[in-house]
């Protein structure tokens, strides 16, 4: 079987497995997995820029929040239904990615990291400043009645899980497709050796911009999805912490792999879940994991697997 065939088989099998789990998981894990799948979409969006293109953004919460607030403010204040509101969330993410991309790509390296951090911080502060509409840190609940698409009630756990799975499968398969095409390989080339790529005839700036657009929009889709499926929007999702999380998830799972972000999100979610039973200082685990990863396993779980054994893993 060719490598491409193997990849598609594997990833479709993962989707099938997650579908099967819908029917067997106990309620607590069922809800968690739905959450993990949506957050994994955020991680996959981040991975597109960090893992494949090699650009480290410290401000991705801006895109996640653009999706979340684009969707939820439209429902809350304009009374739109969920479907069109999701599109507004996506459009918001796309627009924000374009603006941030055009500006931040004028910098590189550490400056790029700080610029993205600053834009995200400004976004977070703006959410607080317009607290009249956003309810700031406290956030607001999106009523059950609004959380329906085509008559399907998304607050019902089974529907919610399946919706999350659809979003997850879409993001994962899009990522898989992109990395197999020429465009995806040029992104990798840019990550590996930008100047060489330029001198092979590629418009590096345009590729980076497209990568940011794809990455930001996918993150916004995750944000909009999270708000819709879990019925809540709050400023925490725009904060620095939510910019650090996808970096953590992707590093843990394996940057530059398709499955890595999901594995990383799943692992970290449960790790934090378990440690928050022990102490309120559960972010300590996040800190220790980050340090250990940078020191000893920069490739992450799936990355190490690929390096040592399964070379065809995308």
């Amino acid at each position, binding site marked *: 079987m060719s490598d491409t065939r193997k990849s598609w088989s594997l990833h479709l099998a993962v989707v099938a497995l997650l579908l099967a789990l819908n029917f067997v998981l106990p309620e607590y894990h069922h809800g968690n997995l739905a959450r993990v799948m949506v957050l994994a979409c955020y991680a996959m969006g981040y991975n597109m820029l960090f893992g494949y293109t090699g650009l480290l953004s410290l401000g991705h919460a801006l895109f996640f929040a653009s999706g979340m607030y684009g969707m939820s403010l439209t429902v809350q204040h304009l009374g739109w239904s969920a479907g069109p509101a999701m599109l507004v969330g996506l459009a918001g993410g796309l627009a924000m990615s374009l603006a941030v991309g055009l500006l931040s790509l004028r910098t590189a390296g550490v400056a790029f990291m700080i610029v993205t951090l600053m834009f995200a911080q400004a976004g977070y502060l703006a959410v607080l400043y317009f607290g009249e509409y956003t309810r700031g840190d406290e956030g607001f609940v999106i009523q059950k009645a609004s959380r329906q698409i085509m008559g399907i009630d998304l607050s019902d756990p089974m529907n919610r899980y399946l919706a999350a799975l659809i979003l997850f499968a879409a993001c994962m398969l899009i990522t898989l497709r992109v990395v197999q*095409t*020429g465009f995806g*390989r*040029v992104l*990798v*080339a840019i990550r*590996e*050796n930008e*100047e*060489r*790529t*330029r*001198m*092979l*005839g*590629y*418009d*590096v700036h345009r590729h980076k911009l497209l990568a940011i657009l794809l990455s930001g929009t996918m993150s916004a889709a995750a944000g909009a999805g999270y708000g819709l499926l879990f019925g809540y929007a709050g400023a925490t999702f725009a904060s620095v912490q939510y910019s650090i999380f996808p970096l953590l998830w992707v590093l843990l799972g394996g940057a530059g792999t398709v499955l890595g972000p999901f594995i990383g999100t799943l692992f970290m979610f449960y790790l934090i879940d378990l440690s928050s039973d022990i102490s309120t200082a559960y972010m300590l685990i996040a800190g220790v994991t980050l340090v250990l990863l940078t020191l000893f396993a920069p490739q992450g779980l799936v990355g190490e697997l690929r390096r040592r054994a399964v070379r065809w893993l995308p």
Partner: protein
Amino acid sequence: MTLLSTRGLSRQFGGLKAVENVDFDLPEGQVRALIGPNGAGKTTYVGMLSGRIPASAGTVTFRGQDVTNMPAHQRIRAGMAYTFQITSIYGRLPVHENVALALRWRTEGDEKETAKRVADALERVGIADRAEQLAGDLSYGHQRLLEIAMGISQQPRLLILDEPTQGLADSEIEDFIKLIRGLAGEMTILLIEHNIHVVMQTADAITVLNGGQILAEGTPKEIHENAAVQAAYLGTG
């Protein structure tokens, strides 16, 4: 037919004139060597030709088109290929992927055609047996050959080689000379070189730069006998 020419091409860094008012013509099909002592401005000049460095003044014309303001990647698409002074390849990717990246935009997704042309290019430079290896695992000499393979796989009109034999062993240099001689009919080659033996064996014509200006131009024999050139080299070591 003149493939590449410059008129009054200059580059200044603050008060320092790295390249001053260079007029240059390269006829199609020629193998031209660009030589000169260290600091003569060769790398800066070639940087302006390839588009990596913007010119302070003057024009660059390629295939009849004014490319002075054209960004580097577009010049590559217009038919230039460039190898770096310090070999620049994708160390963590396999050898065949290195070459595939060089020509994928030409074959437009036809993976069969890409694979064929990759194989041809690797065969040409003599490293076809290493196609599956990671480029970073190759010896320095082979990495240089890989970079040349990447260049020629693009079937360029102009191949610019920046100090290609630097760091190569004598036997590798002889192989390189044969390779260039073999390519000479198919494409125009501009060679920046310090190794005079290589220059004498491969070049149809030589341009000598010194202090940012053209000191002399002519056949290898003429340059070899030129007193001013000898003085420039001996004087500045």
